[in-house]
């Protein structure tokens, strides 16, 4: 069967449904949000349609700059942590027996069925002083006294990486399974140690997959707002937390919308930059 480029309008038919859905459920809400971000906030009331830049002006301050900076830093840190753990893990998983693979994948997939709330509460219990893992360390004689590990940056990072890890493995897994095993065998034959073969052959061969995974986890982590609240101190609250405060508790929709638009633009720019950098490297 030969594939021909679509000739008539009807040939584009199969595209209409997804295009319509995308318009209805993404383009329209997003456009509404952009419109609202320029509306006039009525303090002590609601908002009125207008075209003002106040909402963006309020955002451009050192305070919000720091919050945005922290949110991006947190998302990048989670993405890197997931990939650093995920690539070797998935590499070993792809080389293990079918039974082991299935067991691991089922376990990882079941994490996806847990809601963010459950993950947050579970980790806050594990990190607590009264019922947490430090009690185990005390029992083992590793620590003299149980202590609370939350709220802290480490607790936020751990829970977010835990939540994003299954996605990381699911994106990496197909590429690693399909990776030609003769590549690393050749490297080994030529005298490379397993670690050296992994870093000089496997990792470069997977560069695009790794970049895609980084971007996906980054975007996933950027939207997180519950875990930083449950496990972090106020300085660990992300921009998403402040957006929620404005939208739900202050009923300041224009400002919330402006912050959200800003967050989307910044993350799109960063993703664009990452993809561009990836292409440049490939071109060399």
């Amino acid at each position, binding site marked *: 069967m030969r594939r021909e480029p679509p000739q008539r309008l009807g040939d584009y038919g199969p595209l209409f449904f997804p295009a319509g859905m995308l318009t209805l459920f993404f383009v329209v809400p997003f456009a509404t949000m952009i419109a609202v971000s320029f509306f006039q906030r009525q303090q002590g009331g609601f908002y009125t349609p207008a075209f003002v830049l106040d909402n963006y002006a309020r955002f451009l301050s050192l305070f919000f700059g720091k919050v945005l900076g922290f949110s991006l830093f947190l998302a990048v840190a989670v993405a890197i942590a997931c990939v650093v753990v995920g690539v070797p893990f998935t590499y070993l998983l792809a080389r293990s027996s079918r039974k082991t693979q299935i067991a691991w994948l089922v376990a990882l997939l079941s994490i996806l069925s847990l809601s963010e709330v459950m993950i947050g509460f579970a980790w806050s219990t594990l990190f607590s002083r009264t019922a947490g893992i430090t009690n185990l360390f005390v029992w083992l004689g590793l620590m003299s006294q149980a202590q609370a590990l939350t709220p802290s940056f480490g607790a936020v990072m751990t829970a977010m990486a835990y939540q994003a890890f299954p996605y990381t493995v699911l994106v990496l897994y197909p590429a690693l399974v399909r990776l030609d095993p003769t590549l690393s065998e050749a490297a080994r034959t030529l005298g490379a140690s397993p670690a050296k073969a992994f870093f000089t052959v496997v990792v470069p061969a997977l560069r695009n997959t790794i970049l895609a995974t980084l971007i996906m986890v980054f975007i996933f982590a950027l939207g997180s707002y519950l875990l930083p609240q449950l496990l972090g101190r*106020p*300085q660990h609250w992300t921009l998403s937390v402040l957006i929620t*405060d404005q939208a739900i*508790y202050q009923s300041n929709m224009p400002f919330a919308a402006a912050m959200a638009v800003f967050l989307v633009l910044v993350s799109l720019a960063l993703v664009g930059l990452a993809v561009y950098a990836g292409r440049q490297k490939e071109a060399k």
Partner: protein
Amino acid sequence: MSDIFNNKIGRRAVLGGGIAGASMLAMPAVLRAQDKSLKVGVYGGYFKDSFDKNIFADFTKASGIAVESVAEPTGEAWLVQLEQAAKAGAAPADVSMMSQVSMLKGQSTNLWAPLDLAKIPNAKNLIDRFVNKYPDGKVAGIGAVSWYITLVSNTDVFKEAPTSWAAMWEKDKEDKLGLLALVSNSFLLEVTAKTFMGGTKALDTEEGIVKALEKLAELKPNVRLWYRDEAQFEQALKSGEIPMGQYYHDVTGLAAADGNPVRSTFPKEGGIQDSGCWALSRASKKTEEAHTFINYMCQPAIQAILSRKVGTAPTIKRDLLDLTAEEFAAVSSEIEPIVPRYDLYQTKSDFLNQKWTEMIAG
């Protein structure tokens, strides 16, 4: 059987009947008393369930007015829905229980139909501050229920009950407090003003607010958790993980009654008293029924039922109630409460929110 479905009754008729049947099942209250009915909005969940069980059925028996209770979301989402529906001439609920800040915001757009106190004789039972008025003196809302936020502590960790809100500032509370995360629901500015600045009048000026915020900033090293989610703090308080903080008096009392090592203390400066109001949407056509309902709710006997069954503090004067000392103490206190400065959350909300967020997250 299949013949009947295929020939005598069309497929559409069966479907239509099914839909009609389903909607009949969904709205039994409306069918029972079609002539007189009232839609009442109360917070969804525990509140709505308690009201359905303990209040609305008796009201229908007493007045012949069927009540269809509507679960309203907390926060200001319900206010937005009422406002937009009123613009279109519709009322998703005739009477709603509204927070004080929502009351003021609704007043700014004349969302609330003025109430006629002549038709609510029982309103004379109310404590004065529970009658919400428009600037021109018309009545916008009538106090429905109130509740207290008090100083709570874990009895295993703190053997002695604290006596003042100032206890939160003490050195030995380092990393031990759980406080509400938002300026508009923690009311900590009012607490600070009453405890250290001679009263909430000190918040009249922006300098006063900034001074209160500076005093509050001293608390930061002592705060382990700024919570939005009540369950998170309640759990930590019971286990002693976070042994002190601000929390709801009634819920803490219930937890203590269940045997948890917690106590709720009314500090000498008073507990924070927050409240909800009954308000009538201007789009409602059930003005008469609404007045009857609000009047019914202001009776001492009904307020006593609310205190016993729902755990709310009465909005009417103490001496009219037949609550025993224990029953009253379970929901309220004779100590003059700290009444939040709701006006500030309307006129200065953005300023307060910005300064507050910078204070705790900065």
